[in-house]
């Protein structure tokens, strides 16, 4: 059942991805300049006839749909062309940054959940207490924080002021050690996790409050279950269901946050790559990178949906 649903969701995701590929292809075509403009930029002796001929050779005189279908055909066979900036095939240019972004995303998601879930549960156990109030303030601060500003402030404090951590990049020149790489990850991961802490704390708290009101919790208490057992054994699993649903919708904004974080910390991941590709008129790379980012997000959504079924057997049986 879970596998079947996962299959359906993956199918839907593929359809969405196809629609998005056409939309993004169209948008990229609306960016200033085209590949021929870039080619002839350095050549003052080129005639308008030559330009026309080049456009024909590269199929740029074809209508949008025709060009898109040609691109789609190539893409289906794994052929995304060459990147203008790196002069390497697009696939080779994309994979290392994708790996680095996935490291950043998973580390900050793990950090955010490790902080947010216990805080949300604690706040829910004592609604309207001082602790609840403090947690609420912290959560609002998290969701209201401009990611790039938090990054700047952390760099100003820990890199410029105290000199404890590097201000950006992936590793120091000449240092291949794991410790050095981890030191470079600390500030970006903390920056990206901050917004997540805010979101997930709020969801966890309200889901937990909702569950603790239910009859089966009172039954468990009446049968003499301890407070700890009720929270961990009975309530937590049920409260996780809405939290996981929201998590599914968060992948997209997590990726947006990663783009800003990577720019602030000069971290060579997918976000920075997309930004550089769009700014540098690297059409092939921008197109493939945007689609990859969309695909990763949709995949995250589909997996979270499957996790939702796994957590809630009631829906599974329907």
């Amino acid at each position, binding site marked *: 059942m879970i596998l079947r649903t996962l299959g359906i969701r993956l199918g839907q995701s593929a359809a*969405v991805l196809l629609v*998005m590929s056409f939309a*993004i292809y169209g*948008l*990229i075509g*609306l*960016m*200033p300049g085209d590949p021929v403009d870039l080619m002839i930029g350095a050549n003052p002796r080129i005639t308008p006839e030559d330009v026309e001929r080049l456009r024909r050779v590269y199929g740029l005189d074809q209508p949008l749909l025709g060009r898109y279908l040609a691109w789609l055909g190539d893409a289906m066979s794994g052929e995304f062309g060459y990147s203008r900036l790196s002069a390497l095939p697009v696939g080779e240019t994309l994979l290392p940054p994708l790996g680095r972004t996935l490291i950043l995303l998973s580390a900050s998601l793990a950090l955010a959940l490790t902080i947010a879930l216990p805080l949300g549960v604690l706040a*829910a156990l004592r*609604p*309207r207490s001082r602790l*609840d109030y403090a947690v609420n*303030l912290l959560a*609002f*601060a998290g*969701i*209201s*924080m*401009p*990611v*790039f*500003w938090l990054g*700047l*402030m952390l*760099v*100003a404090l820990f890199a*410029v*002021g105290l000199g404890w951590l590097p*201000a950006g990049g992936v590793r120091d020149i000449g240092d291949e050690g794991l410790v050095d790489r981890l030191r470079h990850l600390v500030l970006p991961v903390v920056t990206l996790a901050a917004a997540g802490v805010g979101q997930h704390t709020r969801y966890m*708290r*309200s889901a937990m*409050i*909702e569950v603790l009101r239910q009859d089966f919790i009172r039954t468990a208490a009446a049968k003499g279950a301890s407070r700890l057992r009720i929270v961990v054994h009975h309530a937590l699993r049920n409260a996780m269901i809405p939290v996981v649903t929201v998590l*599914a*919708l968060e*992948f*997209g*904004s997590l*990726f*947006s*946050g990663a*783009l*800003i974080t990577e*720019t*602030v910390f000069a971290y060579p991941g997918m*976000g920075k790559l*997309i*930004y550089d590709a*769009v*700014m540098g008129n690297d059409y092939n790379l*921008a197109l493939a*990178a*945007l689609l990859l*980012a*969309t695909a990763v*997000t*949709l995949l995250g*959504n589909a997996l979270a949906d499957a996790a939702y079924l796994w957590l809630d057997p009631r829906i599974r049986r329907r």
Partner: protein
Amino acid sequence: MTPAWERFRRHRLAVAGLVVLAVLVLAAVAAPLVEHLLGVEAGAVDLLASYAPPSIAHPLGTDELGRDVLVRLLHGGRVSLGVALVTALAAAVIGTAVGLIAGTAGGRVDAVLMRLTDGVIALPLLPLLIVLAAVDPARLGLPEEALRSGSAAVARIVVIIALVGWTTVARLVRGAALEVRERDFVLAAVALGAGPGRIMVVHVLPNVVSPAIVATTLSIGNIILFESALSFLGLGVQPPLPSWGNMLSGALELLWSAPALAVWPGALIFLTVIAFNFVGDGLQDAVDPRAGGD
């Protein structure tokens, strides 16, 4: 005093947020006055006085070009708050339309529109906004002269963010509309032969105004964050016109020499966003006491 206002007043953080917003708006409106009082101009470059520490002439010091930081912050506030409000209004119109149609029509229309909304929410929006910001509007057939004016860049960012910022409003309005359309007076109107357009506009719309306002308030925070992020990346409001976001874009390189320049614009963005979020939260509790956890 209506009970809703009473409930809002008891939400202390929301009231505090409202006060903060009032002060910020007043300060932004008073920017030319402050400029006059201090005797400095927002755009006046004075390279000999760059990086000046705070003084009576420049209460927050000067930036890398010797411009007064306080006056630029106030003018930036006019731009950032203005863009945020206009964008929120545009997003609210789109969101209300989508939510109203989905909730009133129900059935397949509802399913399609809500899938679309979920789809937009799930997308990695910032990378897509970057492409939208890089699109050359001349290729869309818009007149060239209109695009060169300074306000074109501002108009473009409003459109771009409104295109993705409507989802919260759509979802909340749709939920409310689904409820309203089952009520007796709507059923009576249907029985009397009112068409779907009339039902939607005359009977359902007035009853979903409050959730629409709540959702719009809750969206403004995100809209400000998007605008400032785009301006920070150099794709939003263009210098020399100051906005809180673009005042920070130079700050990264200057962080080693003048870290203080990075503090104020970001602090104001943070303060504005958190104030809007508190007000939105308070409004939500006031309008629908069951929705909030407390």
